[in-house]
Structure formats: C-alpha cells, structure tokens
C-alpha cells in the first residue's frame, strides 16, 4: 500500500476496503455479508442527503494553525465552513493552540471555468493567499466539478512551488468519488504525507553525531530509549480536547511521553511525528492509511484497536499499549485503580440508567464501542446505526456479536427515514445520536443525547462517568420531546411507520 508515494490521488475506500452504506439485519448477518463482499451492492432505492468527503477534509485540515485553505470548486463547496469555523476555533483554544480567524477562499467556479478549465483561477487564488496572508501552508481542496473537467491541481501546485513562500498541499476530495465520508482521512493523510516533512532535519532540528563529541553509541542508545518512551496519539475532529486530555493522562500515568497528532498541529511540528516509538490510533476507522505509511517509511509500529470507550475497551486499549512499551504491571495497576474509582463514581447513577433502552446512530466504530459501554452500564441496546460499514470495523463488530448476539444493525449515512421508523417501532428511551440525527429523534418524540461532541468527554474513565451522568440527566425530563413529538409534523406518510424500516434497501443478496 504505497499509494502515498506513488500516486497523485489517494485511493477511495470504496475500492481499498470492503465497504457498504446500506444494510438492515442482525450483526451476525452483517459480518457474513461483509465478509463475502456483498455489502457494497446493497443499494437504497430511496436516499437522503448526507455529507461528502470535502466536508470532513475541511474539518481536519483547517485545524492546522497558520494555514489558509482554498476550496477549488463552485461557491457552495466550502460554504459550510461557516458552521465549522467555531468548532475549530474553540478546539484550538481548548488545546492551547493560538488561532485567529479561519481564512478560506473559493475559486468560485463559473460556467466559463467549467468549459475552459479552472486552473488559472486556482493559480490566481494561491498567489493572492500567499501575498495577502503569508500562511505557512496553503491547502487546496478540490471538489467535484474540477475533477470532472480534469483540472490538475497538483500541476498548478508544482508550477507555483518556487514562487510562493507557503507549502502548497493539494487535497483530492470530490464527493462523487466515494460513498464514505471517512475516505476524507485518506485524502488528508495523502496530502500531508506527500507534502510535509515527517522527520527532523539534521543541523536544524538536531545536531548529528560528528565523531568529536562524547560516546556516540551511548548517545544512540539514549536516543533510542527516549524515542521508545514516546507515544503519538492520533486524534480526529470527532475526538475532543477533553478526550485527548484523559488519554494523555492515562498514558503519562504509566510513564510514557505523549504527543497528539495530526489535528491542531503546526506544519513544522510534523517533522517530529516520526520521533516516537509507537503510534496509537483513537478510532479504528481513521488512521490505517497514514500509520501504515509511517511504518513502511519510518519503521514506527502502530496500534489500531477500536476506541477507548467503556471500561473493558479502555482497559484493553491501555494494556495493548503497555504490552508494546513494557509497562504491563503499571498499566494494570492504573486500570485497576481508575476502574475502582470510577465504579464508586458511577454507583449513584446506575439505578436510574439500568435497563434504559438505547438506540445508537453515528460513526461505525463509535456506535459499536458506545453500545458495549452502555451494556456495561446496564442499558439495553436496541440497535446500532453506523454511518457505513467497512472491514476495518470487523473486530469490534465481532465482539458486539459475542456480547449482544442478534443485535440489529442498520448501516445508514443518517437516512432519517429509517431512523424515524425504527424509533416509532422500538420506542427507545434514549437515542445516542451523531450531529444531524438528534433533531429527527426529537421530532419522533425520543430523548436524544449527543453520541459525540468535541467539547465533551466520552473516552476512558472520566468519559464513562460523564456519559452516565448525561444519560441520567437526559432521562429525568422528556417534556420537550413529548411536546415536540405531539406537535411537529414529520415529512413521511403515516403508512411508512407500519412498513419494514429496510423496505428501501435492496439487500436480498446480502443474506444468501
């Protein structure tokens, strides 16, 4: 998988992995269908809008301080940054990263550009941004139209490299190329890895051994020791600063030096990315593309294992790391102590939470990890609704099958019509919902709690406590949901609620 070095454009997950965006059935059936590669063919004959990989791409790269982003496309592409601006600025502040306004440009492609090409305008935009804002990095994110008409953004970047002070990082993220928003992780990492230095510069960042200094072998051993005690946590927009803090604290407790990459990191700090003994992903759906590349080129091993959400997953996550760094004993002691402390903290909430029937809707790993965590709290999981499915997620879904046999899974990029049908049918006490679905849950009369939020803590022990506290709070008063449920008008004909929620998924072949 040397895509990063060999190809201008990243692969899409539709072909790189076994993916699917439509399915309704048991977790066992899902795993079997995915194993046979039959999910991709499960198409919907009705479909509601979702986001595209440009959206997540922007969410990720705009976190880089001292960068300006140019969206190469029509004026609508990138206009959603008005919504992304605040989360990114507050995310910067929460991490102590200095960030003023977020600046972006649109090449604002018009009819004439679509006919005769938009490369000239892109060139103009890059020169303008370099002159006007003097950023360290200029990202160029290309959307659908320029990809269809054949604009070559890499070529434009190459011809300007000598002319502008900024590093130009092309990002290929046209929405139509992939069914899976998560392809954005590959698009971003492709751009970063191909265009940023990932290793320190001799003489600038460190003094290379010159034979005149002290014992070179001892220096090398010392360097290796230090590197081996350093771990990179790989973050993402869905993971907030409070989660980063909790995980950092846990790893420090077992004596490791922790750094967080790749979001909210300045371009020059990427030169130290490879100065670590281990890369640790916080979510299995994010990072394999980058971490495999770093392993290949720089020899840094990595761990990708679901998500440190819930007591068991957190312990496993921590022990996995400790096993690599040789800190098992300490890690077990830390986990034991923190678990005991957490159980005391949870005790007052458990009677209220126990037996709550919960539906989960959102990211593929997160809904599964959160479902397992809820089970630990004594809740009953009604169904999980991952945005998509891919074979990177197999391990945690296999575990889900073991612990919640027969659990219903609805693979759906939001698709409010299926969500509302399931809510009307199952009447869950709570819906844990990714942004964009809480509104539908509420209108269907159900209490909803955000499944993720960059300002809240979900991960590890404090995250588990916060989740329990939030569930207990949310289920104390459902007046809003009842009032809205009685009065809001949903868009569907009432007959819809009597039908199978998966009526519009063509999935017969998946069950063969």
């Amino acid at each position, binding site marked *: 998988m040397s895509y990063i070095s060999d190809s201008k454009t990243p692969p899409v997950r539709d072909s790189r992995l076994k993916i699917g965006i439509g399915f309704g059935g048991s977790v066992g059936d899902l795993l079997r269908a995915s194993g046979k590669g039959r999910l991709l063919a499960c198409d919907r004959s009705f479909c509601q809008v979702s*986001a*595209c990989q440009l959206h997540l791409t922007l969410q990720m790269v705009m976190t880089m301080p001292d960068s300006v982003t140019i969206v190469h496309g029509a004026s*609508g592409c990138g206009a959603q940054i*008005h919504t992304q601006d605040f989360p990114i600025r507050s995310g910067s502040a929460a991490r102590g990263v200095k960030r003023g306004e977020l600046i972006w440009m649109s090449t604002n492609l018009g009819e004439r550009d679509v006919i005769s090409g938009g490369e000239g305008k892109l060139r103009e935009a890059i020169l303008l941004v370099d002159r006007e804002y003097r950023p360290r990095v200029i990202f160029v994110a290309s959307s659908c139209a320029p990809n*269809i008409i054949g604009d070559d953004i890499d070529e434009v970047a190459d011809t300007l490299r000598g002319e502008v002070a900024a590093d130009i990082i092309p990002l290929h993220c046209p929405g*139509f190329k992939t069914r899976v928003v998560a392809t954005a992780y590959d698009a971003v990492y492709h751009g970063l890895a191909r265009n940023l230095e990932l290793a320190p510069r001799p003489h600038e960042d460190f003094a290379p051994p010159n034979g005149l200094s002290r014992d070179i072998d001892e220096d090398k051993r010392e360097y290796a020791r230090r590197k081996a005690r350093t771990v990179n946590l790989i973050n993402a927009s869905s993971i907030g600063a409070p989660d980063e803090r909790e995980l950092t604290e846990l790893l420090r407790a077992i004596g490791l030096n922790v750094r967080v990459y790749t979001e909210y990191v300045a371009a020059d700090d990427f030169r130290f990315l490879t100065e670590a003994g281990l890369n640790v992903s916080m979510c299995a759906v994010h990072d394999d593309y980058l971490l495999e590349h770093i392993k290949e080129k720089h020899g840094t091993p990595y761990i990708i294992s679901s998500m440190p959400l819930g007591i068991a997953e957190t312990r496993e996550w921590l022990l996995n790391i400790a096993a690599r760094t040789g800190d098992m004993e300490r890690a077990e002691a830390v986990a034991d102590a923190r678990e005991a402390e957490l159980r005391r903290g949870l005790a007052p909430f458990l009677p209220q939470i126990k037996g709550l029937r919960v539906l989960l809707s959102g990211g593929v790993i997160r809904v599964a990890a959160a479902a397992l965590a809820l089970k630990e709290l004594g809740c009953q999981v009604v169904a999980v609704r991952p945005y998509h499915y891919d074979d990177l997620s197999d391990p945690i879904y296999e575990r889900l099958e073991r612990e919640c046999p027969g659990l219903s899974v609805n693979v759906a990029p939001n698709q409010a019509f299926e969500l509302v049908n399931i809510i009307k049918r199952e009447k869950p006490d709570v819906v844990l919902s990714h942004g964009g679905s809480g509104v539908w849950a509420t209108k269907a009369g159900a209490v909803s709690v955000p499944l993720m939020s960059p300002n809240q803590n979900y991960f590890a022990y404090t995250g588990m406590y916060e989740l329990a506290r939030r569930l207990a709070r949310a289920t104390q008063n459902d007046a809003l949901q009842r009032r809205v449920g009685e009065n809001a008008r949903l868009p569907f004909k009432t007959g819809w609620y009597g039908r199978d929620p998966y009526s519009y998924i063509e999935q017969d072949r998946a069950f063969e």
Partner: protein
Amino acid sequence: MSIIERQRFSCMLGGAADAVAAMPGAVPIIHGAAGCGGNLFMASYGGSGYCGGGRFGGNGVPTSALTENDIVFGGIERLETRLRSAIELLDAEIFVVLTACMTEIIGDDVDGAVGRFQGCGKTVFAVSAPGFAGNSYAGYEAALGGLFKRYIKPSPADCRHVNLLGAVPFHDPFFRGDLEEIRRLLESIGLTATTFFTADQTLDDLKKAGSASLNIVLSPAYGVALAAELAESHGIPYIVSELPVGAEASAEFLRKVAERLGIEGAEAVIAREADRYYNYVDRALDLIADTDFMQQYGIVVANANAALPYARYMRRELGWLPRYAFVTDSLNERQREAVEAAFAEAGMEGLALVFETGTTAVRKRVALDNPPLLPERYGDRLSPAYILGSSMEKELAAQLGAKLLTASFPITNRLVVNRGYAGYNGGLNLLEDIITQFVSVR
C-alpha cells in the same frame, strides 16, 4: 465570477434547495452527489442564526446520490428510482428536482425524466441549479421561478392580494419575522399576501399567488428579474421597494403600496402605528438619551437586501452617522446599479457605498481610510462606532473598538427564531437589540 474570500452565500443549488424546502408541501430532490445537500445545508444553517431544515429540508432532503459510475454512465436511472420512492414515501405535493454541477456537466436529460412522472398525481418538475451557474440568491430566484412556471397558474387578478418577493430564506436570516410583519402591515390596509416562506403558508397560499394584483419585491437585487418575467407570464405588475425597517420606512412603504393599488385609509393606519411605535421608543429614551449610546458612527456590512435598510434606520430613526455601507454579495451589473440607485434615492450623504465581497478587504478599506492617530493630543477618529454586520465582522469591531450587532449572514452567535427587523415591530426589535449590546456587559 471571480475568486472570493469567505463567500457569504452558497451556490445556486443551495439557494434553490433552501427555497423549495422553505415552502409549504414542497420537497427538493437533489440530482447530484449525496454530499451536496448536506454540505449546503450546513452553510445555510450555520450562517442563518441556526435556522433548521424543517419538514422537508436539511438532511432529510432526498437525493439521487450519484457516485463515480453514474458520472461516467449517466444518473437518470438512479434519479427516477429515487424520485419514485420519494413520491411514495413523503407526504408532499410538489417535488422539485434540482440538478447539481455534475449532472449538468454530464448532460443528464432531467426534463425527460421528470416528464415521465406527469400524471402521478403530484406536481413534479425540474429546475436547473448547478453551483457553477450562480450563487444561492440565483438559486432562490430559479426555484421560485420554477414554481410559478410549473405550479402557480395565472388567474384573474384579485385586487386585494399581493405577493412578497425578494426576501431570501436563510440568507436573509430574519426572513420569517420580516415577512410576517410586512404581511401584518399589508393586512392593516386591507390586503392579503402570499409570503411563500412563513410558517402559516399552505398550498392554497401558493396557488393564490397566481391571482395577485401586485408583486412587491423587497430587494433592489433579488427577485426583480423574476418579477419582470412574471409581469409577462402571469400579467402581475410589480414594484421594487427596500425592506422597510422602522417607523419612517414603514410609513413610506404603506403609502407606496396604497397609492399603487388605489387604497384609501393608509394614513389612519400610519398614524395609529406611529403612535404605538413612539410609545415604546419613549420608554427606551430614559436609557438612551442620557448616555453615550445616543450617537454613533455607523458601519453596515450586509447583503444587498439589508445594507440600505440598516444604514437608513441608523440615519433616519436613530439619528446616527452611518459612514459605510459594505455590500458583500457578488452582484451583476444590473443588480449593482439598482443598489446604487436605491442608495442615491435614499439620500445618504456622508456614507460610502462599497461593493466588497471579501472580509479582509472590508477591514483593509476601513483601516486605510482611518489610519491610526499620529502621536498628537488631538485628532478626530471613527469613534464611537457601531457595526451592523455579520459574525465575520468581529475583527473589524476589534480593530475599531466598535460594538457589533450581528444582523446579516453569517450569524453564528445568535439563534434566530421568529425575530424580524422589518416594519414597525422590527424597528422596535432592532432598537432593542442594538441598545442591548451596550448594556449586556453590565
């Protein structure tokens, strides 16, 4: 269309989808990639003071969800399948297929496809709305134009009914409150009005639009071309008015409409409204008149619809000194001239009208005109200053040490529900919000 810094609008597709979903019983169906609708809604939602998708909008909008294969081989089959399902599943009457960039570039025969749905018992039609053909304001006009062409039949004129055009959903963040208040004014002189986008609208209101005896365009730039078309196609004459904000502008608006339609009794209404308006203003004067809030230099940074009404309100209602009106839309020559003419007619001496889409450029212009004081004891300056702008004017406010009320797209620091700044009630709301900025730190 030139490159643009931080556009304060989205594309034609976004504007068209917003407009269709804001009308009663109407569903947009996006013929394009699955992400278009979601991304574009994030733009409108995030900038409009968090106006949600409602019944048929937001991330509930149906789409043909094309992928790479469809771009190569054509997406019509997918569109037909998913449109058929939409009609089966959704409790709506009007289904509007909107084409995105990719389906226009590959040349899908969308009219042919929707033609096959004639006779299905619902109104189904297509509007060409590729992002590269214009911005969201153009999308608003295209969607409304499509509705008039395919749903609203020309009917015998009802001399008491008018339509309100020009207030653009989401991009005029106060569109619902404004339209409700304008209709209240019109009702006070015996008229009825189709607003298209307020919560009370029904399919009957849409149909009734065909019998209007006047289209009132509340914008110098948007809806004017559409109104001219409708004069031809539906025989409805039109007038262009600025959005009236405050007592003076509202009185002028009522006189203009009454005169045009030959309605008597407007003066009594105006007198009654003014009496009520100044009764409220009176009670605010105890605070305003004894403080520094009394008079400010005004800076307006807004879209073409709001720039003049806000500047005029500052000057003629508050007695402030508006110095700049930045119009941040990208306008064609005709629209630009119309905005210039409207400002000229309003007589705003001392005010610089600047067409500038870029936030940085707005700030630069103000900085260049108002250089920092030389190290001298005495020097005049642009202070105290007050900005009516968008959330992107925070830096300009910091630069000038000015107060800022966010009143134009994008508004990210307020939730706008049914608040409006138009009419008498809107004028009072605006007074309340402007002055609240001074006391909110107390």
